[in-house]
């Protein structure tokens, strides 16, 4: 594996808990920041995904047309794609609507018990009929289970990637 210099993190359909867990690495973030450059993330300002990123951590499932567009571009421009957390891995809570489809969810949120009912259509991406785990849409290199994965688990993944290994989390981290 080539030298890892750039890191990106993305937030698809998830609760941001995986990113909280990432921040939960505390002082280890300082150690990592001297080895990685964080080039794209909800935590930094850059708005477009760079041409080339060595490692991208993906939080969340693929739930909207925008998620779909994003993850395809990210895959194309990423060396090692890491599915981070249960939403990315299994669909998790994000995929609970798959038993009924998106329509009842839209009605529940935007029409029932709302003073001015309206289903938003402008400025928001359309929902996909089915929420999907990341690996059902694009090939994934590393799977990190957990809701969220612990800070220790994320640190282990990043350390191993820096050391030139592609980590496997089987027997190390569990769903939930």
């Amino acid at each position, binding site marked *: 594996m080539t030298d890892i210099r750039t890191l990106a993190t993305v937030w698809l359909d998830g609760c941001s808990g995986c990113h909280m867990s990432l921040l939960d690495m505390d002082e280890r973030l300082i150690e990592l920041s001297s080895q990685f450059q964080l080039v794209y993330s909800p935590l930094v300002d850059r708005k477009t995904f760079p041409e080339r990123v060595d490692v991208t951590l993906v939080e969340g499932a693929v739930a909207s047309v925008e998620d779909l567009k994003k993850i395809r571009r990210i895959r194309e421009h990423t060396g090692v794609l890491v599915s981070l957390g249960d939403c990315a891995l299994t669909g998790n809570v994000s995929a609970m609507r798959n038993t009924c489809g998106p329509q009842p969810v839209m009605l529940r949120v935007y029409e029932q018990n709302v003073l001015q009912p309206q289903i938003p259509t402008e400025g928001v991406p359309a929902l996909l009929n089915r929420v999907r785990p990341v690996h059902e849409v694009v090939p994934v290199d590393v799977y990190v289970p957990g809701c969220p994965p612990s800070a220790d688990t994320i640190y282990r993944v990043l350390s191993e990637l820096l050391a030139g290994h592609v980590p496997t989390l089987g027997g190390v981290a569990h769903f*939930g």
Partner: protein
Amino acid sequence: MSAESNVRTLTIDGEEISARADQTILEAAREHKLAIPTLCHLDGLSEVGACRMCLVEVKGARRLLPACVTRVEEGMEVTTHNPKIDRYRTMILELFFAERNHICSICVANGNCELQSLALTLGMTHVEIPYQYPQLPVDASHPRFTVDHNRCVLCTRCVRVCSEIEGANTWGVMGRGAQSLVITDLKEPWGESETCTSCGKCVQVCPTGALFEKDRAGSKVRKQPDFLPYLRIMREGEQ
């Protein structure tokens, strides 16, 4: 029958062991601290060979055999772990996860679930098989217990404990294949069951969060199925 004819000598993972003729491969292996993963098996209940997690390779057999319902034989050569067996077990586990809606993060059994721990021990980090997302009912009509079919793996431990230990025969299975459901009486709501004694044994033996106690739903209480072998021994002692 002489004592010697009751003994069988076999090898499990290259280790030569002796077992009683009426023992299964699983019993013999566990007596010798050789680990074989199981899900539907529970000490104290009869075996059904439903989950297939305990598949092992027996030299000369054309297919993998479930260790829980295969009796030991003289000269048997059993392999409990190799890449082929591991692949089958992981696939079976993936089928369990894909078949219903197992969402560990919001489950009452999170951290105390046998399905979840199997995924950890077998190193299953994701499911390649497309999830089915079936629409399944939750029956909370019983004052103390709930059955959530989304989390059921159809191991039938509840059915067996209700019949074999409690003697109430409240639980049964309806339907076929993935459409099967565990039901109370003739699919009456659990709360209206006339046979249920509300003993709670089914809840204690359920390996997942499919059966749970309402007042403990949020506290992640570990289930206690350890009473079964004890009950069995005490009852057999009486006869």
